[in-house]
C-alpha cells in the first residue's frame, strides 16, 4: 500500500506522532503537565483567597521587545528573543552566551513614552538577567474654577513616572524542559505638591517545554504572589493589587523560514498570535493579532546586532496606532571548554577494517567509522565491497540504522520507537528482512513506493536516486532553478536535491562537472555521504 493512499489511516498518524515524541519527552510532558496543574491551582487559590483591591497596571504587559510586539505580543514560547525572556523567564535558559536589548515606544500620540533596557548572561548555573522598563509623561495640568465657575488651568503642572525593574533567572531542568523566575520591583510616582509614590513587588514564574526542535510550549504565571504579600502601596496608604495573569504560549516552526506563535491570557481570554517569515537570512517579515488589534513589523540582522520594528494598529482609535523599536545584541555562542579530565575521557571513535578497503581508499574513514559505530556492516568474508551497488531495501536499512545510532547517543534503547504497524507494499512481505526499515523510511517520507503499490526492494539505486534520498534524510532544503552538474539540468527531476547536496559539500568526492546520474549508487558513496551528514561525529 502506498503511504499516500486513502488507507493511510489514523493509526499511522498516531504512530508518527509518538515517534516524533520519544518516550523521555513524553515523560517531560507529564512533568510539565503536573507542574502546570500544581502551579496553576495554587496560584488561583491564592488569587481567590486574597482581599479585593483595585488592580494596578503592570507595565510589562506592554511587551518587552518589538519582535514579540509585531507578533501580536505572543512571547511566552518565543525562544531566542531577548525581550520575551522577561515575559517568560524560562526562555532565558536557551540563551547561548549573553545579550542586551533595548526598546522604545511612544504611546497615545506621544503623551507617554516607554524605554526598556535589558541584559542576560549565561552562567554555569543558568541564565541571569536584569531589565528596566520605564514610562514617563510630563506636563499634567492642575486646574481650578474661576469666578464664573468655569474650569481653568491654574498654571501649575506635575509629572508621572511608571517603572519596573526585573531580575530573572532561568535554567534547564531537563533536556527539553526549562524553568525560570523573575522578581519585579514596581514604582509609580506623581510629582508635585499633591503627588505621591507607590511601590511594590511581585514574582513571575515560567516553564518552557521543547518536545521537538520545531515546537515550544510555554507558560508564564505573572505576578504570582497574593496581595497579602505583594501589592503596590502608595504614600496615601492606598493599597492596590498587582494583576495576576497566566499566559499559555506555543511557538511552532513548520519550516526553517517560518514561525507561528500564539499566546492565550487567563483569565481575560485575550488571544495573541503572529507569524514570522524569514524572507532572507537577515530579514524577517512579521504580522500578528493582539486581542482585537493587528500588528506588523520587520526584523533586520547585521552580524550580531538585531533591529526590530513593530507597528501596532489600534482599531479602536487609529490615532493610538504606534511604532515600537528594538535594538538587540546577541553574543555568539561561547565555545565549550570541558575540564581536562573530561577531555581525557572522551572516547576514541572505534573503527572496523575491511580487507577490500585499502589504506588509501577515498572513503576509508567513512566506511570504517560507520562500521565501528554499527551503522553499516560488511560481509561474512571480511569484505565491504565498496564499489557494489546498493538496493532500495539496503538503503532503507542504512537510513533507519543511522537514525537509531544517532538517537542512542542521547536516549536509552527503550526509547527507540519501532514501527507498530509497518506499511506493507505488495512486493514487501511481512517476512522480508527489511520490512520494518522500509516501512519506517517510507513513513518518514525518505522513500516512496511506485504507483502500482510496489516498492521493488531489490532494485539497485542509481546515483541520482541515492543522492536524492540522502538529501531528504539530511533535511536539506531543495535548491530550485540550479543546474548543479553539466549532465543535471535545472529541470532534472532530482536537480533540486542534488544541488542542495552539492551545496552542503556532500558530493565533494565527485570530481569534474559530470554527475553520471544513471550510474549505480555504490556502498562507498552511501557511507561517505552519511558520514558527511553526521559531520564525522561517529
Amino acid at each position, binding site marked *: 500500500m502506498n503511504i499516500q493512499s486513502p488507507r493511510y489511516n489514523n493509526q499511522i498518524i498516531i504512530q508518527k506522532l509518538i515517534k516524533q515524541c520519544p518516550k523521555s519527552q513524553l515523560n517531560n510532558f507529564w512533568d510539565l503537565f503536573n507542574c502546570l496543574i500544581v502551579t496553576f491551582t495554587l496560584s488561583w487559590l491564592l488569587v481567590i483567597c486574597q482581599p479585593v483591591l*483595585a488592580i494596578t497596571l503592570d507595565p510589562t*504587559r506592554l511587551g518587552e521587545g518589538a519582535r514579540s510586539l509585531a507578533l501580536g505580543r505572543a512571547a511566552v514560547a518565543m525562544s531566542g528573543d531577548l525581550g520575551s525572556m522577561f515575559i517568560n523567564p524560562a526562555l532565558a535558559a536557551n540563551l547561548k552566551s549573553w545579550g542586551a536589548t533595548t526598546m522604545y515606544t511612544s504611546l497615545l*500620540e506621544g503623551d507617554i513614552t516607554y524605554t526598556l533596557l535589558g541584559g542576560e548572561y549565561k552562567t554555569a548555573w543558568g541564565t541571569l538577567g536584569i531589565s528596566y522598563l520605564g514610562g514617563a509623561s510630563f506636563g499634567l495640568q492642575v486646574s481650578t474654577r474661576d469666578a464664573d465657575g468655569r474650569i481653568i488651568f491654574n498654571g501649575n503642572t506635575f509629572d*508621572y513616572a511608571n517603572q519596573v525593574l526585573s531580575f530573572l533567572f532561568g535554567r534547564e531542568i531537563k533536556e527539553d524542559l526549562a524553568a525560570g523566575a523573575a522578581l519585579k520591583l514596581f514604582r509609580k510616582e*506623581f510629582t508635585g505638591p499633591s503627588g505621591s509614590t507607590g511601590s511594590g513587588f511581585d514574582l513571575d514564574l515560567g516553564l518552557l517545554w521543547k518536545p521537538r526542535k520545531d515546537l515550544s510550549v510555554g507558560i508564564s504565571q505573572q505576578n504570582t504572589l497574593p496581595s497579602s504579600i505583594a501589592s503596590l502601596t502608595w504614600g*496615601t496608604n492606598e493599597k*492596590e493589587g498587582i494583576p495576576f495573569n497566566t499566559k499559555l504560549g506555543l511557538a511552532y516552526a513548520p519550516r526553517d523560514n517560518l514561525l507561528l506563535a500564539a499566546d492565550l491570557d487567563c483569565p481575560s481570554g485575550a488571544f495573541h498570535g503572529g507569524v514570522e517569515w524569514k524572507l532572507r537570512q537577515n530579514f524577517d517579515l512579521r504580522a500578528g493579532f493582539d486581542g482585537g488589534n493587528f500588528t506588523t513589523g520587520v526584523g533586520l540582522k547585521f552580524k550580531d546586532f538585531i533591529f526590530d520594528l513593530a507597528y501596532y494598529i489600534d482599531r479602536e482609535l*487609529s490615532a*493610538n496606532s504606534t511604532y515600537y523599536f528594538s535594538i538587540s545584541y546577541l553574543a555568539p555562542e561561547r565555545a565549550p571548554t570541558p575540564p581536562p579530565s573530561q577531555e581525557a575521557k572522551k572516547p576514541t571513535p572505534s573503527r572496523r577494517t575491511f580487507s577490500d578497503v585499502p589504506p588509501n581508499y577515498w572513503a576509508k574513514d567513512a566506511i570504517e567509522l560507520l562500521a565501528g559505530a554499527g551503522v553499516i556492516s560488511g560481509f561474512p568474508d571480511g569484505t565491504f565491497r565498496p564499489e557494489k551497488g546498493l538496493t532500495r531495501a539496503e538503503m532503507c536499512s542504512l537510513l533507519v540504522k543511522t537514525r537509531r545510532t544517532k538517537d542512542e547517543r542521547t536516549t536509552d534503547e527503550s526509547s527507540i520507537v519501532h514501527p507498530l504497524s509497518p506499511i506493507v507494499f505488495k512486493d514487501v512481505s511481512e517476512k522480508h528482512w527489511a520490512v520494518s526499515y522500509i516501512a519506517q523510511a517510507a513513513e518518514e517520507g525518505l522513500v516512496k513506493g511506485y504507483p502500482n503499490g510496489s516498492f521493488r526492494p531489490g532494485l539497485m539505486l542509481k546515483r541520482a536516486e541515492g543522492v536524492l534520498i540522502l538529501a531528504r534524510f539530511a533535511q536539506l532544503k531543495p535548491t530550485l532553478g540550479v543546474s548543479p552538474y553539466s549532465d543535471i539540468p535545472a529541470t532534472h527531476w532530482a536537480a533540486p536535491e542534488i544541488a542542495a547536496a552539492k551545496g552542503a559539500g556532500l558530493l565533494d568526492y565527485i570530481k569534474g562537472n559530470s554527475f553520471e546520474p544513471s550510474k549505480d549508487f555504490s556502498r562507498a558513496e552511501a557511507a561517505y555521504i552519511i558520514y558527511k551528514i553526521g559531520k564525522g561525529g561517529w
Partner: protein
Amino acid sequence: MSSVNYQGLGGAGEGLIGNLLGTNYLGTAGGIAVLWANISAAEFPTIANVKVDGKSIAEGDYIKASGTLTATVTDETAININLSSIEVDGTFTSFAALTGTSTYDAQAGALTYVFSGLSDGNHVFGLYAVNSSGNLTSRRYTLKVDSGTLKAQEVLVYPNPYNPKSGQPAKIAYRLNRDSNISLYIFDALGQLVYKQDYLSGSEGAHIGYNEVDWSGTSNSGNPVANDLYFLRIVSDGKVIGKCKIAVLK
C-alpha cells in the same frame, strides 16, 4: 445737568463705573472696580443670566453665526429703555428699538436679542442697562464664530489629581467650536481603553461652547480604576479633536 452713573460688571469683559453723562467720571476698565464715592451699589441696574442659545457664556466662548442672546436686566426702580442698549460689533440698538423676536419685557426684565449672519471671527457683544436714575451697568463679551474644523479647546479635568474616593465625580471641561456628536475615550497608561461615553450633538458634552461632563473614576464595566495616569481623548468622526491627562490618586 442730568447724569448717569455707570458700573461695569462685565466679568471677563470690560467693566466701567461712573457717571455716563456728567463730569465726575472715575471709570476704569479691565475688571478693576472703582466705586463712585457717593453712589451705593443698590442704585445700579442688574444684568444676570446672560446666555446664548440657552447656554451661559463667558469671555472667548464659541457661538453660532445665528442665535439668540438672552439676559435678565432689572432695576429696583425702572430701566430706561431708551438709554439701555445692546451692542454687536459697535452697532448699538436701544431696548426701545428692539423689534420682532428681539424684545425687552420690562415687567420680567427679560431681554431677548436675535442675531444672525455673523462671520467667522471674534465678535463683541455688549449689554448696557441704564436705570431711571441714570446709573449704568454694562457687560461686554468677545465671542467667537468658527465654522472651520471641529476642535475641542481648553480641555481640562477638575480636580487634577482626582480622588474617586472623594465621592464627587471628576469634571471634564472643554470648549467646542460647533455642535457635533462626541465620544469621550479614557485610556490607561498602556493605551488600553478603560472608559468610553458617547454624547449626542447639542447635548451637554457635545454642544457649541463650554461643556462640562462627569467621570466617576470607573471603567465601563463599573470597576474603580487604580491610581495611575489616564489619557482623555475627545473624538468626533473617529478623529481626536482634544485631549488631556488625568491623574487618579486615592
